[in-house]
Protein backbone atom coordinates (compact mmCIF):
# COMPACT_ATOMS: atom_id res chain seq x y z
CA UNK A 1 0.00 0.00 0.00
CA UNK A 2 2.78 2.39 0.93
CA UNK A 3 4.66 1.25 -2.12
CA UNK A 4 1.61 2.03 -4.27
CA UNK A 5 1.38 5.49 -2.78
CA UNK A 6 5.04 6.17 -3.48
CA UNK A 7 4.65 4.98 -7.06
CA UNK A 8 1.52 7.05 -7.34
CA UNK A 9 3.40 10.09 -6.05
CA UNK A 10 6.21 9.58 -8.52
CA UNK A 11 3.71 9.47 -11.34
CA UNK A 12 1.42 12.28 -10.35
CA UNK A 13 3.16 14.78 -8.08
CA UNK A 14 6.18 16.93 -8.59
CA UNK A 15 9.52 15.06 -8.76
CA UNK A 16 10.87 16.90 -5.68
CA UNK A 17 8.02 15.65 -3.48
CA UNK A 18 8.48 12.10 -4.71
CA UNK A 19 12.19 12.32 -4.00
CA UNK A 20 11.54 13.38 -0.41
CA UNK A 21 9.00 10.59 0.08
CA UNK A 22 11.44 7.99 -1.23
CA UNK A 23 14.30 9.32 0.88
CA UNK A 24 12.16 9.04 4.02
CA UNK A 25 11.10 5.53 3.03
CA UNK A 26 14.67 4.34 2.48
CA UNK A 27 15.94 5.97 5.68
CA UNK A 28 13.06 4.48 7.68
CA UNK A 29 13.75 0.96 6.43
CA UNK A 30 17.51 1.13 6.79
CA UNK A 31 17.72 2.79 10.22
CA UNK A 32 17.59 -0.26 12.54
CA UNK A 33 20.07 -2.39 10.54
CA UNK A 34 22.46 0.40 9.69
CA UNK A 35 22.86 1.89 13.17
CA UNK A 36 26.51 2.59 13.70
CA UNK A 37 28.75 2.40 16.74
CA UNK A 38 29.14 5.48 18.86
CA UNK A 39 32.46 7.15 17.87
CA UNK A 40 33.92 6.75 21.38
CA UNK A 41 33.03 3.04 21.37
CA UNK A 42 34.38 2.57 17.83
CA UNK A 43 37.66 4.21 18.85
CA UNK A 44 38.02 2.14 22.04
CA UNK A 45 37.39 -1.01 20.03
CA UNK A 46 39.82 -0.33 17.20
CA UNK A 47 42.54 0.77 19.63
CA UNK A 48 42.14 -2.45 21.61
CA UNK A 49 41.11 -0.74 24.85
CA UNK A 50 37.95 -2.81 24.95
CA UNK A 51 37.40 -6.34 23.68
CA UNK A 52 34.82 -9.06 23.14
CA UNK A 53 34.53 -11.48 26.05
CA UNK A 54 33.52 -15.13 25.78
CA UNK A 55 30.35 -14.53 27.79
CA UNK A 56 28.86 -12.22 25.15
CA UNK A 57 29.72 -8.96 26.86
CA UNK A 58 32.31 -6.27 26.33
CA UNK A 59 35.31 -5.98 28.64
CA UNK A 60 38.03 -3.45 29.37
CA UNK A 61 41.44 -4.67 28.20
CA UNK A 62 44.31 -3.50 30.38
CA UNK A 63 43.93 -0.67 32.85
CA UNK A 64 40.46 0.72 33.32
CA UNK A 65 39.51 4.39 33.17
CA UNK A 66 36.16 5.94 34.11
CA UNK A 67 35.55 6.76 30.44
CA UNK A 68 36.17 3.17 29.32
CA UNK A 69 34.07 1.77 32.15
CA UNK A 70 31.22 4.06 31.12
CA UNK A 71 31.39 2.89 27.49
CA UNK A 72 31.54 -0.79 28.48
CA UNK A 73 28.70 -0.52 30.99
CA UNK A 74 26.49 1.33 28.53
CA UNK A 75 27.01 -1.28 25.80
CA UNK A 76 26.63 -4.20 28.20
CA UNK A 77 23.35 -2.92 29.65
CA UNK A 78 21.97 -2.63 26.12
CA UNK A 79 23.29 -6.07 25.20
CA UNK A 80 21.78 -7.64 28.29
CA UNK A 81 18.39 -6.12 27.51
CA UNK A 82 18.60 -7.51 23.99
CA UNK A 83 19.80 -10.94 25.18
CA UNK A 84 16.97 -11.10 27.71
CA UNK A 85 14.39 -10.44 25.02
CA UNK A 86 15.94 -12.83 22.48
CA UNK A 87 16.58 -15.58 25.03
CA UNK A 88 12.94 -15.57 26.06
CA UNK A 89 11.86 -15.85 22.42
CA UNK A 90 14.34 -18.68 21.82
CA UNK A 91 13.39 -20.51 25.04
CA UNK A 92 16.93 -20.31 26.45
CA UNK A 93 18.56 -18.69 29.46
CA UNK A 94 20.11 -15.22 29.18
CA UNK A 95 23.54 -16.74 29.86
CA UNK A 96 23.13 -19.32 27.12
CA UNK A 97 21.99 -16.76 24.60
CA UNK A 98 24.73 -14.34 25.62
CA UNK A 99 27.35 -17.07 25.26
CA UNK A 100 26.04 -17.98 21.80
CA UNK A 101 26.15 -14.30 20.83
CA UNK A 102 29.69 -14.07 22.23
CA UNK A 103 30.78 -16.89 19.89
CA UNK A 104 29.44 -14.87 16.97
CA UNK A 105 30.71 -11.52 18.21
CA UNK A 106 34.25 -12.90 18.58
CA UNK A 107 34.01 -14.39 15.10
CA UNK A 108 32.88 -10.99 13.79
CA UNK A 109 35.84 -9.05 15.24
CA UNK A 110 38.09 -7.25 12.75
CA UNK A 111 41.87 -7.66 12.66
CA UNK A 112 43.45 -5.49 15.36
CA UNK A 113 40.48 -5.74 17.72
CA UNK A 114 40.73 -7.61 21.02
CA UNK A 115 38.87 -10.75 22.05
CA UNK A 116 39.04 -13.16 24.96
CA UNK A 117 40.52 -16.60 24.24
CA UNK A 118 39.21 -19.77 25.97
CA UNK A 119 42.04 -19.54 28.55
CA UNK A 120 40.74 -16.09 29.58
CA UNK A 121 43.59 -14.07 28.09
CA UNK A 122 43.09 -11.18 25.68
CA UNK A 123 44.13 -11.83 22.10
CA UNK A 124 44.45 -9.50 19.16
CA UNK A 125 42.41 -10.64 16.20
CA UNK A 126 44.43 -11.37 13.10
CA UNK A 127 43.24 -12.41 9.66
CA UNK A 128 43.25 -16.00 10.97
CA UNK A 129 40.23 -17.50 12.73
CA UNK A 130 39.93 -16.46 16.40
CA UNK A 131 40.57 -18.94 19.23
CA UNK A 132 37.14 -19.77 20.50
CA UNK A 133 35.53 -21.99 23.11
CA UNK A 134 35.06 -25.55 21.79
CA UNK A 135 31.35 -25.17 22.43
CA UNK A 136 31.12 -22.44 19.80
CA UNK A 137 29.69 -23.79 16.55
CA UNK A 138 32.07 -23.73 13.59
Amino acid at each position, binding site marked *: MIKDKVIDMIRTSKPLLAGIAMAIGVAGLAAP*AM*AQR*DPAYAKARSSGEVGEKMDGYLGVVGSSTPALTAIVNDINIKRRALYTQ*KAQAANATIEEYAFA*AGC*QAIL*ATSPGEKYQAPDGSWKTRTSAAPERDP*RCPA
Partner: protein
Amino acid sequence: MTGQVSTSCESGAGGWSKPRRAALTGRGAVAAATGLATLALSGCITVKAPDKPIVIELNVNIRQEVIYRLAKDAGNTVEQNKDIF
Protein backbone atom coordinates in the same frame (compact mmCIF):
# COMPACT_ATOMS: atom_id res chain seq x y z
CA MET B 1 40.24 -34.42 52.11
CA THR B 2 41.78 -37.86 51.85
CA GLY B 3 40.05 -40.74 50.21
CA GLN B 4 38.53 -43.50 52.26
CA VAL B 5 40.32 -46.83 51.86
CA SER B 6 38.66 -50.17 52.35
CA THR B 7 40.79 -53.32 51.93
CA SER B 8 39.96 -56.99 52.29
CA CYS B 9 42.85 -59.50 52.18
CA GLU B 10 43.43 -63.14 52.88
CA SER B 11 45.02 -63.46 56.32
CA GLY B 12 47.81 -65.79 55.22
CA ALA B 13 49.03 -63.71 52.30
CA GLY B 14 52.22 -62.12 53.55
CA GLY B 15 52.78 -60.17 50.35
CA TRP B 16 49.66 -58.09 50.99
CA SER B 17 50.75 -56.68 54.31
CA LYS B 18 51.33 -53.19 53.01
CA PRO B 19 47.81 -52.39 51.83
CA ARG B 20 46.36 -54.02 54.93
CA ARG B 21 48.39 -51.78 57.19
CA ALA B 22 47.16 -48.79 55.23
CA ALA B 23 43.62 -50.00 55.68
CA LEU B 24 43.89 -50.58 59.38
CA THR B 25 45.25 -47.13 60.05
CA GLY B 26 42.70 -45.51 57.76
CA ARG B 27 39.02 -44.80 58.18
CA GLY B 28 38.10 -48.11 56.58
CA ALA B 29 39.61 -50.13 59.44
CA VAL B 30 36.26 -51.45 60.61
CA ALA B 31 35.27 -52.55 57.12
CA ALA B 32 38.62 -54.24 56.61
CA ALA B 33 38.38 -56.07 59.91
CA THR B 34 34.89 -57.31 59.07
CA GLY B 35 36.15 -58.49 55.71
CA LEU B 36 39.01 -60.46 57.30
CA ALA B 37 36.73 -62.11 59.84
CA THR B 38 34.00 -63.21 57.48
CA LEU B 39 35.71 -63.81 54.15
CA ALA B 40 38.10 -66.61 53.35
CA LEU B 41 38.83 -65.50 49.82
CA SER B 42 42.20 -65.75 48.20
CA GLY B 43 43.13 -62.31 46.91
CA CYS B 44 42.85 -58.75 47.90
CA ILE B 45 40.19 -56.22 46.99
CA THR B 46 41.00 -52.59 47.50
CA VAL B 47 38.36 -49.92 47.03
CA LYS B 48 39.57 -46.36 47.24
CA ALA B 49 37.30 -43.36 46.93
CA PRO B 50 38.76 -40.52 44.85
CA ASP B 51 40.25 -37.57 46.70
CA LYS B 52 38.13 -35.08 44.74
CA PRO B 53 34.35 -35.13 44.64
CA ILE B 54 32.88 -36.84 41.59
CA VAL B 55 31.41 -34.16 39.35
CA ILE B 56 29.35 -35.15 36.35
CA GLU B 57 29.59 -32.24 33.96
CA LEU B 58 26.16 -32.41 32.37
CA ASN B 59 26.26 -28.65 32.11
CA VAL B 60 28.85 -28.75 29.32
CA ASN B 61 26.86 -31.11 27.11
CA ILE B 62 23.57 -29.35 27.58
CA ARG B 63 25.05 -25.99 26.82
CA GLN B 64 26.87 -27.10 23.70
CA GLU B 65 23.61 -28.38 22.31
CA VAL B 66 21.76 -25.19 23.24
CA ILE B 67 24.50 -22.96 21.85
CA TYR B 68 24.42 -24.89 18.60
CA ARG B 69 20.68 -24.34 18.41
CA LEU B 70 21.01 -20.63 19.17
CA ALA B 71 23.92 -20.00 16.77
CA LYS B 72 21.93 -18.69 13.82
CA ASP B 73 19.60 -16.56 15.93
CA ALA B 74 22.53 -15.10 17.88
CA GLY B 75 24.42 -14.44 14.65
CA ASN B 76 21.49 -12.45 13.30
CA THR B 77 21.25 -10.50 16.55
CA VAL B 78 24.94 -9.52 16.35
CA GLU B 79 24.57 -8.64 12.67
CA GLN B 80 21.45 -6.54 13.14
CA ASN B 81 22.62 -4.54 16.15
CA LYS B 82 25.88 -3.11 14.93
CA ASP B 83 25.58 -0.12 17.24
CA ILE B 84 26.15 -2.29 20.34
CA PHE B 85 28.34 -5.03 18.83
